[in-house]
C-alpha cells in the first residue's frame, strides 16, 4: 500500500494524483454540460412542438368555434401515437370546468399570460404544458409527455462514467509510469549525494542518455560531487602533509632532548627537559585531535566503515576503567547502563566520545562530588555531575575548537575534547547538547532531531 507520507514527499506522486483528479474533474464537467445541453435542447423542441400544437388548436377554434375544437380534441386523443410523446388536452371554462380533453383538473397555470410549465399528469407521467385564453369564458391547455428523456440521460451518464473511469485509469497508468521513471532518475542523483562513492559518481557521469533537463542535472550533479570529493581529498592530503611536516621536526626535537637528558647529571635540568618533552607530547596530542576532528567532520553522514557496536558493553568497560580512579580521587561514580544498546558506528571514535565526556567530568568536579553516566536505548547517553557546571555565557561556545573554559583555567587541555565529541557525535547522526541542569553540568548525546 502506498503510504500517505510517501505521496506528500514525492512531487511525482503529487503530479499523478493531480492528473487523475483533473481527468475526473474534466469528465464530470463534460457530463454536466452534455446533460444540461440535452435537457435544454429537448425542452426547446417540446416547447416548439407544443406551440405548434396550440397554434393549430387556436386556428381550429377561430375557424370552427368551441364545438369544432372540442370534437377535434377528442379525435386527437383517440389517435394517440403509441411510440411518441403522448399529447393531452383540456378545454375548460373560466372556472376550470372541463368541456373537453383528458386532463381532469386545471393546473396552477395562468391562461391569460400564455404560461408554460412542467406538471405531473394523473398517470404520474411528467409533461410540459402551455395554456392560452381563447375567449372570455374559454381556456385551452396542451400537454406533451416527455418520459423517454430520463432514459437517454441515464445512458449518457453511464457513457460518461465508463469513459471517465477509462480516462482516469489511463492517466493513472501513464502518469505512474512516467513518474516512476522520473523518480528513479532523480533518486539516482539523491543516492549519489547521500553516499558519494565511486560507483554512484560513475553512474551520474554516464548520464541517462536522454539528453533532457534531468540528464543535464544528473551530469552537473556528478561533476559537482566529483569536484567536492577532489577538494576533500586535496584538503586531506594537505593536512596530512602539514601534520607530517610538523611532526617530523618535533620528533627530532624530542630526540635531542632525550640525548640531553641522558647526558645531564643535574636533576633540576633533567626535570626541565622532562617538562619540555611533556609539552612536545601535548602539541602532538593537539595535532592528533585536530586531525581527528577534521576526519570526523569530513566523514559526517558517510556510512562507510561503520560497524555494529554494543554501546552497553563499551560503556561498562570504560566505567570499569574510571571507577577505580574515581575511588582514588574521592569521587562518587554512579552508572546506570541499559543492556543491549547498539549503534552502527566507529568503535574507537565512540569510545573516545564517552572517554572525553568522563575525562571532562572528573577533571572539573572537585573531590567529594558525584559523576553519573546513564545509557539508554535510542541511544541516549547522559554524563552529568554536581560540580561547578558551565557558566551561562559559555554554553554557546563550549563545543567549539579551542574553547578552553574559564571555569578552571588550571585544567589542562587544548580545548579540543568537546569539539571532538561533537564531531564524533555528528559523524554518527547524534547530537551532543549541554542540557539545562540545576547543579553541575549535564551532557546528553542523543539521535539528531533535525
Amino acid at each position, binding site marked *: 500500500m502506498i503510504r500517505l507520507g510517501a505521496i506528500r514527499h514525492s512531487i511525482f506522486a503529487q503530479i499523478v494524483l493531480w492528473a487523475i483528479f483533473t481527468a475526473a474533474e474534466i469528465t464530470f464537467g463534460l457530463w454536466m454540460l452534455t446533460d444540461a445541453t440535452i435537457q435544454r435542447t429537448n425542452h426547446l423542441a417540446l416547447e416548439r412542438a407544443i406551440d405548434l400544437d396550440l397554434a393549430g388548436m387556436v386556428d381550429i377554434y377561430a375557424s370552427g368555434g368551441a364545438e369544432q375544437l372540442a370534437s377535434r380534441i377528442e379525435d386527437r386523443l383517440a389517435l394517440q401515437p403509441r411510440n411518441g410523446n403522448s399529447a393531452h388536452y383540456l378545454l375548460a371554462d373560466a372556472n376550470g370546468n372541463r368541456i373537453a380533453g383528458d386532463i381532469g383538473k386545471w393546473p396552477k397555470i395562468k391562461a391569460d399570460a400564455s404560461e408554460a410549465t412542467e406538471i405531473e399528469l394523473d398517470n404520474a407521467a411528467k409533461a410540459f404544458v402551455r395554456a392560452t385564453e381563447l375567449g372570455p369564458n374559454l381556456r385551452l391547455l396542451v400537454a406533451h409527455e416527455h418520459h423517454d428523456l430520463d432514459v437517454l440521460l441515464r445512458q449518457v451518464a453511464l457513457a460518461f462514467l465508463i469513459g471517465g473511469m477509462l480516462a482516469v485509469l489511463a492517466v493513472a497508468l501513464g502518469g505512474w509510469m512516467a513518474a516512476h521513471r522520473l523518480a528513479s532518475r532523480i533518486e539516482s542523483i539523491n543516492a549519489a549525494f547521500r553516499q558519494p562513492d565511486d560507483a554512484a559518481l560513475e553512474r551520474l557521469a554516464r548520464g541517462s542518455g536522454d539528453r533532457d533537463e534531468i540528464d543535464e542535472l544528473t551530469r552537473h550533479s556528478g561533476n559537482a560531487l566529483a569536484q567536492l570529493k577532489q577538494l576533500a581529498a586535496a584538503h586531506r592530503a594537505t593536512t*596530512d602533509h602539514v*601534520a*607530517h611536516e610538523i*611532526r*617530523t621536526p*618535533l*620528533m*627530532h626535537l*624530542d*630526540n635531542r632532548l*632525550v640525548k640531553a637528558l641522558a647526558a645531564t647529571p643535574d636533576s633540576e635540568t633533567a626535570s626541565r627537559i*622532562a617538562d619540555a*618533552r611533556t609539552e*612536545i607530547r601535548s602539541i*602532538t*596530542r593537539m*595535532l*592528533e585531535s585536530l*586531525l*581527528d576532528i577534521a*576526519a570526523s567532520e569530513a*566523514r559526517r553522514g558517510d556510512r562507510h*566503515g561503520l560497524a555494529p557496536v554494543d554501546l552497553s558493553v563499551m560503556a561498562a*568497560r570504560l566505567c*570499569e*576503567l*574510571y571507577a*577505580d*580512579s574515581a575511588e*582514588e*580521587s574521592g569521587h562518587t561514580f554512579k552508572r546506570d547502563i541499559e543492556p543491549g544498546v547498539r549503534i552502527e558506528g*566507529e568503535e*574507537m*571514535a565512540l*569510545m*573516545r566520545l564517552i*572517554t*572525553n565526556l*568522563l*575525562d571532562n567530568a*572528573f*577533571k572539573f568536579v572537585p573531590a567529594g562530588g558525584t559523576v553519573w553516566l546513564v545509557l539508554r536505548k535510542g541511544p541516549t547517553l547522559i554524563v552529568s555531575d554536581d560540580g561547578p557546571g558551565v557558566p551561562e555565557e559559555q554554553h554557546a561556545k563550549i563545543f567549539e575548537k579551542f574553547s578552553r573554559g574559564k571555569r578552571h583555567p588550571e585544567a*589542562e*587541555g587544548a580545548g579540543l*575534547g568537546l569539539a571532538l565529541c561533537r564531531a564524533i557525535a555528528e559523524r554518527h547522526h547524534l547530537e551532543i547538547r549541554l542540557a539545562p541542569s540545576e547543579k553541575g553540568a549535564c551532557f546528553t548525546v542523543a539521535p539528531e532531531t533535525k
Partner: protein
Amino acid sequence: MSGLNILYIEDDARAASRVQELALQTGDTVTWAATGNAGLMRAGTECFDVIILDRMLPDLDGLTILSRLRESGVGTPVLMLSALGRTSDRAEGLDAGADDYLAKPFEAEELLARLRALHRRASGRTHSAVILYGAFECHVKARTAFRNNRHLSLSPKEFDLFRYFMENGGEVLTREMLLRDVWKMDFDPQTNVVDVNIGRLRRKLEEGFDRPALETIWGSGYRLLDGQ
C-alpha cells in the same frame, strides 16, 4: 633474550640513525633501507625478526609495500610508522596487515618496546597455560595469580593487566601499549586512569613482600620485575 634482527624501511636518515643508536645499546641489530624498493628486496631475501615500515616513502606507499610483502608470503611482523596519526589511518594500516601502528613523533624506547612485544607475540611465547616470571605465576585458564606460591587476589581487570605484564615479563611496557592491549584504546585519556589502575595492581603485587614488583620507568612506562 638475544637482540632482535630488525629491518627499518625509512627515508628519514635522522630518525633511522636515532633508532640504530638506541638499538646498539639494547643489543639489537637494525638494517636500514632508505627506499621502499630497497626495503622490499631485503625483506624478500633476508630473514628478519621484525620489520619497521614508514608509511610515507618517496618511491612506494607503505601500504603497497605491506600488501606486496604479504602476497609474496613474508609473514614477518610489521610495525607501521607514520606521521598520519588519525584513528582512521591507524585502522587502515592495521587492516592492510600491519601488526602494530605507531604515530610519529615516537620515542625510540616506545618503538623498541613494541617491537619486542610484536616479536614475542609472533614467536608464540605467549600462548602457554601457565606463565612464569621470577617469583610470579600466572594461570591463564584458571585466571589465578601467585607470588612465591602465595595467591594474589586480583579483580578481573587487574588480572588482565597482570597477565599482560607477565607475557612481557622484564620488558618496558608503555602507556600506549597498555591502553591498546589491555583496554583496547588507541588514544590516551586525559585523566590518570591508567596510573591509578597500575597503582592498585602494584599494591596488590607488593603487599606483604619486601621487594618491589612493578617499576615505573620515568617518561616511558612500566616494567614487571622478577620480585626475587
